């Protein structure tokens, strides 16, 4: 059985078809098994070089991509700079030139500016994988979220998925919205009106500012982190008010469906987005998301380097 994978890069979920998404999730099942064996390595990317370019810092995503590449037998180099030193020193264009000169096969980039992966992909022969660009997309997060949901429910189509929190500035929300709508799930977005504006209805989502209503029929509740770094003081009055109005506490959780899954891209603000007990409880799949992240990233790396394009 063969499949024509036509993308050199993975810049977002938006350009993918439902069929391509399904192919990634199916392949990820095979790669998950690799991590369960004694020999946790396959030779598919032997001799290939992956550079992790994390301009915006992140330990967990970077480690996940590093481990994914290593398990595929690729060599990994980590470059981590803060955005400010990049501005003082090298431009993104010069960074791209240097990467080209290093003859890397894969560049995994996380950057605070939306469109930075597109910038590199247009200039490099290497496969560019977006690990998060500003508020635009975080495609592997949405893929691992989908994998986790599918693992539990056997499907994505027809499920009610609620995404709760700071949607406006969230790349995780955007990638999830693209993926879940392509796969036939029904999405509800919930949070303060300043962070969950009506414009999202144009993306096929239901928008509500009432958390009770949002979680009542949800099969999956995906909690977003309230972001301090990109938050402007004008958007809402503070953590205390957010937790009181939109925090997933025990009382609200009790009124959700007994089969509802709790997800979070991490890191969690315990006591703000969600109560500790719920985050650690039986219906939380937050840890499985991390494991699945590795499998999904292996699948993505395998695919983007696998076809002769």
């Amino acid at each position, binding site marked *: 059985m063969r499949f024509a994978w036509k993308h050199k890069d993975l810049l977002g979920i938006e350009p993918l078809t439902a069929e391509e998404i399904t192919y990634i999730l199916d392949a990820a099942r095979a790669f998950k098994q690799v991590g369960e064996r004694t020999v946790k390595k396959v030779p598919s990317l032997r001799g290939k070089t992956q550079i992790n370019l994390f301009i915006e810092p992140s330990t967990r995503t970077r480690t996940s991509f590093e481990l994914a590449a290593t398990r595929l037998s690729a060599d990994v180099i980590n470059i981590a700079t803060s955005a400010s030193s990049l501005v003082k020193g090298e431009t993104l264009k010069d960074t791209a030139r240097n990467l080209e000169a290093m003859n890397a096969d894969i560049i995994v980039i996380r950057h605070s500016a*939306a469109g*930075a992966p597109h910038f590199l992909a247009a200039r490099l022969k290497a496969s560019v994988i977006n690990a998060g660009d500003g508020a635009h997309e975080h495609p592997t997060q949405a893929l691992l979220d989908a994998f986790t949901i599918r693992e539990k429910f056997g499907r994505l189509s027809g499920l009610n998925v609620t995404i709760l929190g700071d949607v406006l500035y969230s790349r995780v929300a*955007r990638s999830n919205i693209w993926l879940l709508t392509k796969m036939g799930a029904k999405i509800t977005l919930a949070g303060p009106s300043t962070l969950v504006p009506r*414009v*999202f209805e144009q993306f096929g989502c239901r928008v509500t500012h009432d958390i009770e209503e949002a979680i009542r029929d949800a099969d999956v509740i995906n909690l977003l982190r309230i972001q301090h770094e990109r938050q402007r003081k004008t958007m809402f009055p503070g953590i205390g008010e957010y937790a009181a109005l939109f925090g997933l506490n025990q009382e609200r959780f009790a009124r959700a469906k007994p089969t509802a899954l709790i997800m979070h891209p991490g890191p969690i603000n315990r006591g703000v987005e969600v109560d500790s007990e719920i985050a650690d409880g039986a219906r939380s799949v937050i840890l499985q998301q991390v494991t699945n992240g590795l499998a999904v990233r292996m699948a993505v790396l395998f695919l983007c380097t696998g076809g002769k394009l």
Partner: protein
Amino acid sequence: MKPLWIRNGRVIDPANHVDAVRDLWIVDGRIADTKPPGDAEILDATGRVVAPGLIDLHVHLREPGRSDKETIATGTRCAARGGFTSVVCMPNTTPAADNTGVIAFIKQRAAEAGGVNVFPAGAITKELAGEELAPIGSLKKAGVVAITDDGRCVQNNELMRRAVEYAKMFALPVLDHCQDDNLSADGVMHEGYWSVALGLRGWPAAAEDVIVARNILLAELADWHIHCQHLSSARSVQLVREAKKRGVKISAEACPHHFTLTDAALKNYDTNYKMNPPLRTEADRQALLEGLADGTIDCIASDHAPHCAYEKEVEFDAAPFGIIGLETELALALELVHQKVLSLPALIEKFTVNPARLLGLDRGTLAVGAPGDVTVMAPDWEWTYDVTQSASKSRNTPFHGRQLRGKAVATIVAGRIVWREE
């Protein structure tokens, strides 16, 4: 200098209600009505349109200070190639044109370039900081034709009011780049579906509308002219339309990119589509077309804003706003005629009699005795824009490779052909 005889062209001179095939003479740098004795240089304009020299009242020539992006010499060459005989240059240079020294420098450089006419605009406030009035009277003496803080916008309404009242004394129109700094803070494009899809910070049309409304009220209060630059929003057009009905001294301009493109063009994060005001929605674009058709929008201007390649070739957030436009402006404007939004004479008004009237210039007309500034154009000439051949030092345009219809074929300033199509 020999007289210039422009033969057999379709002369369209809206200022004098002329639209007929006839000859035109320029003698001693001025329009004449009879053939002079002796021989003349002949420019055959058969099949062409002959108009008063076009005026672009919004360009950035970048000198003094950023001659790496553009100089007065290269910018005026662009103007000539685009068919423009006069340009009004904006004061956001380094140092800003908030003192007579800079104005004198600009005039000197323009004279050295020896091409099209350069009319400087002076600043409203010192260093364009929006805090203290610039020496507007001295600037008028030094030769500015208008004042503006373009690049920036005076946020303090009381200060703006006083500036308008003061400018009235010198009969200087006030031009305004209408933008509320707080509503637009951190934004890089129009706030709407596309800013959400692309994950970029946007700012709403209201940031422009609120200042247009402010300007209408202050123009009424001071009973003096405020000209709203580069309108991009449907609501702005509507506000100006209603204010004009009431007789308020308000006017407006639009740039070709705003009536040609929309925010959907930003889909690939190409910084050649990043400008301020930003490209907005199709509904806004349609409102601009209506505003041009019904006269709400008086002028068309380019907001020619050169930037070096290295400055624009960065991630979208970091790129400066602006595109060059002098060489594509006429063709994009002629699209309005091809699409029957405007007649050709009505379009020519927007480049001639309207800006001239606003600025109090004795230009934009082919009346006898007027300065011999003429633009000869071929409205149906099909060509492809190749920015690599541009006279500009910069290359930041979204129109490279675009098929265009309509071109200037000769640009004449004071009876001298400063540029012609080979």
